[in-house]
């Protein structure tokens, strides 16, 4: 696709010609096989699957189109393979193994449904507001296979940011154009003034998706009104939360949406230069983004004199070295400028003095990707989605002890319970939900009793957590909250920039205290000390990282105080996680001496004879838990 010469786009007809090309590859006249080739898919083995698809097709001399797509968000079923036969629904196969590919392709032209996970009967396009049906005439339902629109995982979702993820080939500008891409840019440049574009964003009520939730329109207004120039735009793709990958999904699945959003922003704010700050740990996202920039430049959609409108806008990529704190805007700017990534006091805000001392607008990937939809459908339309002061949709990466680990996008105001139990499919293995951690390492743990709260900026803050960038970790009753607090403090003590004494030493000391409690050596007054420290770090640190760093401790102390007390007073870990407080033993009544655990024991602590009884020598036990996992008869006891 990328090889043929891209004609310059200078009028709407040319853009339409692109779209026609794109439609031809998006919905071809022949059978199309798609493999989800985002980083998550690749990690699960999508490259081997794609290879098998190519081999299989070559072997049989079939005239099928093969396409790579981004991630549709169904992480628990990766690698995903989709078969689309013209006039029929798109059939999705999950957890595909290379050797299954031959069977699936062998069954064509009628796709096998016994292995299928779901069928997609068409796709919604939020940019145009139209629905594209794949099926001729009928509703396309297939007996025995659920449709995407019936699946709890997808039924409640509304995909605006992830509109093209898993549908288009991210390396194809044409397919993006076929989905209504760059039309918003066209409309903005030729039928709206910059002020009108800005007014749409203000009306939409869009708030920054990076975590703090500052109204995007007001930020744009401030940059537009700021004196001096040149002005800069920055796309913040420095996503560093453990277990969160919303930005990566968008960058890898639909890079052009971010570019289009930035160009529109540049037009509205009078900026001509944009920087995408992405972490180097996302090599595929960097590659996809670089490719998209090159394509857009060659098509005259980016660069000098865009679409012959006289407006110029350039985008470059800056790679971050993976410091979590560089997601903070002033640290990010310092990092782009080549200085140490440490935050500086605000004011002056970046909208007055940002990159190279010039007015700068920093928005998150999701925010930029939302902009084209707002421009094409209007701020009014967007403002009807969501709840209260939180408008639109939000992407969450739903991970942890949940049946469907997934990348989802739901309207603001969907309750946590709906997300976990309906979309996420509840907790697997008959366990019960204990808490949901939102907002990444500096977010808080919301207990299961509070799952009825709607997900919006204000409600989450009230519950002692934050929206953050959208990480959502579900924990079941086998999770120890002291252990969780210890884990996040460990992350923060490494990732604090270390400039403010209170944040650097405060997180270290909090970790020290929580570690002591987890080891059963805590003292009663440690909780008081923890609260003092948490207050100190929160109040006296400079940036958002420090201000929110104590959240994991504060929220677990607020909702799970008894668990801390059990560690301190009874030297007991109720969830049986903290190594110092548990012992493994073998129930002589149940053990049949199969010996499965013996070879796995890292400490060589399991003594006994095969077919007879085994026992665990406590002095040698490292408490790794391998025996517990390996025992098929539940003979290993934890106390």
């Amino acid at each position, binding site marked *: 696709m990328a090889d043929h010469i891209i004609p310059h786009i200078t009028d709407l007809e040319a853009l339409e010609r692109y779209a026609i090309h794109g439609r031809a590859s998006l919905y071809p006249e022949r059978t199309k096989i798609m493999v989800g080739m985002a980083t998550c898919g690749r990690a699960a083995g999508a490259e081997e699957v794609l290879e098998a698809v190519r081999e299989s097709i070559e072997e049989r001399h079939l005239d099928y189109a093969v396409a790579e797509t981004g991630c549709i968000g169904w992480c628990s079923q990766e690698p995903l393979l989709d078969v689309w036969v013209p006039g029929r629904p798109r059939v999705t196969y999950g957890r595909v193994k290379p050797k299954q590919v031959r069977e699936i392709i062998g069954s064509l032209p009628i796709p096998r449904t016994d292995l299928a996970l779901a069928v997609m009967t068409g796709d919604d396009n939020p940019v145009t507001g139209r629905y594209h049906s794949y099926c001729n005439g009928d509703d396309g339902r297939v007996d025995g296979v659920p449709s995407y629109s019936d699946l709890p995982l997808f039924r409640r979702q509304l995909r605006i940011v992830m509109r093209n993820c898993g549908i288009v080939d991210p390396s194809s500008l044409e397919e993006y154009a076929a989905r209504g891409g760059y039309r918003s840019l066209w409309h903005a440049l030729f039928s709206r003034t910059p002020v009108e574009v800005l007014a749409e964003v203000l009306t939409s009520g869009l708030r920054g998706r990076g975590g703090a939730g500052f109204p995007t329109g007001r930020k744009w207004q401030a940059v537009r009104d700021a004196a001096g120039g040149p002005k800069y735009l920055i796309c913040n793709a420095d996503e560093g939360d453990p277990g969160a990958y919303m930005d990566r999904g968008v960058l890898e699945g639909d890079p052009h949406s971010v570019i289009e959003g930035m160009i529109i922003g540049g037009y509205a704010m009078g900026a001509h230069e944009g920087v995408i700050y992405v972490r180097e740990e996302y090599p595929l996202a960097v590659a996809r983004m670089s490719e998209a920039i090159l394509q857009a430049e060659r098509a005259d959609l980016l660069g000098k004199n865009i679409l012959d409108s006289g407006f110029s806008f350039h985008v470059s990529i800056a790679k971050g070295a993976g*410091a979590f*704190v560089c997601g903070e805007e002033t640290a990010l700017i310092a990092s782009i400028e080549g200085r*140490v*990534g440490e935050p500086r*006091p605000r*004011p002056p805000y970046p909208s007055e003095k940002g990159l190279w001392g010039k007015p700068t607008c920093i928005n998150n990937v999701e925010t930029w990707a939302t902009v084209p939809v707002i421009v094409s459908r209007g701020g009014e339309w967007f403002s009807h989605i969501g709840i209260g002061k939180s408008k639109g949709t939000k992407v969450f990466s739903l991970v942890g002890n949940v049946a469907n680990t997934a990348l989802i996008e739901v309207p603001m105001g969907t309750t946590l319970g709906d997300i976990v139990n309906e979309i996420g499919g509840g907790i697997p293995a008959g366990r019960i939900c204990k808490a949901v951690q939102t907002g990444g390492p500096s977010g808080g743990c919301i207990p299961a009793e509070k799952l009825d709260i709607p997900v919006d900026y204000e409600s989450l803050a009230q519950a002692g957590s934050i929206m953050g960038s959208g990480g959502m970790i579900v924990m079941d009753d086998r999770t120890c909250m002291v252990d969780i607090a210890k884990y996040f403090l460990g992350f*923060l*003590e*490494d*990732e*604090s*920039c*270390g*400039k*403010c*004494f*209170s944040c*650097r*030493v*405060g*997180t*270290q*000391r909090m970790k*020290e205290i929580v570690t002591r409690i987890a080891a059963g050596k805590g003292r009663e*007054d440690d909780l008081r*000390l923890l609260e*003092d*420290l948490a*207050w*100190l770090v929160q*109040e*006296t*640190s*400079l940036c958002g990282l420090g201000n929110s760093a104590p959240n994991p401790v504060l929220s677990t102390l607020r909702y799970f105080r008894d668990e801390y007390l059990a560690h301190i007073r009874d030297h007991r870990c109720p969830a049986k996680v903290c190594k110092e407080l548990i012992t493994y033993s073998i129930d002589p009544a149940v053990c049949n001496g199969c010996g499965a655990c013996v070879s796995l024991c890292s400490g060589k602590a399991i003594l006994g004879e095969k077919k007879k009884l085994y026992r665990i020598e406590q002095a040698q036990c490292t408490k790794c838990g391998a025996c517990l996992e390996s025992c098929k008869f539940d003979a290993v006891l934890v106390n």
Partner: protein
Amino acid sequence: MVRLTLNGSPVEVEDGSTLLDAARLYGIPIPTLCHDDGLTPYGACRLCVVEVGVGKLVASCSTRAAEGMVVRTNSQWVDRARRLLLELYVATSPQSKRIQDLASAMGVRECRYEAQHEDCIQCGLCVRICNEQMMAGAIGFAGRGKSRHVSRPFEQTSELCRQCGACLYVCPVCELRCQAGTAETALCNGCLNFAPACFKTYDDAMCFLEPCHACELAGPFRADARTSLRAATTAR
């Protein structure tokens, strides 16, 4: 000129003054560990926090005074923050006399942490004086989080270092050592016992020391010491 309210009084300071400048201009002492008038403000030690408006603590050394600001340098919150900070400082660097003195003066009476004897509090004074005043740039910060430390390029002796010793001169930890701490606590508080008595007479003559040594030493930070002293004298 910028007009603001400082501890309840309306005051005026020059444009561009920081809150620390403003407070010092009006004779209000604010403790700092990372500030030096000859160096750019850094805002790392956080000891100079003051309350702006209601409940918002900012580092006064790196916050510009703005028209209409309401600033309090001695509110309950500020005091609590400083005491908790100093408790942490003492545990990190119990051998620094500066820190021990500040802790005593601010009324820190217990240290609930185990002493770590790390000494360096990363105030950045040495780095800044080397860069800004000595124009050498021989030392800087390396790493982040708990592994952040003052270092030389590639951990080698730098050719840029002229061994001028300016870094030692400004260091709040190296300058004066305190033989602090017992096995139980890192906090010394020993100086509290040395608060000199205020003599009404010196031998037979009246005391005319101006300013009085005792009063000087028992300065604004020593209010606590003075009170305990007065209590002790009265009891006697």
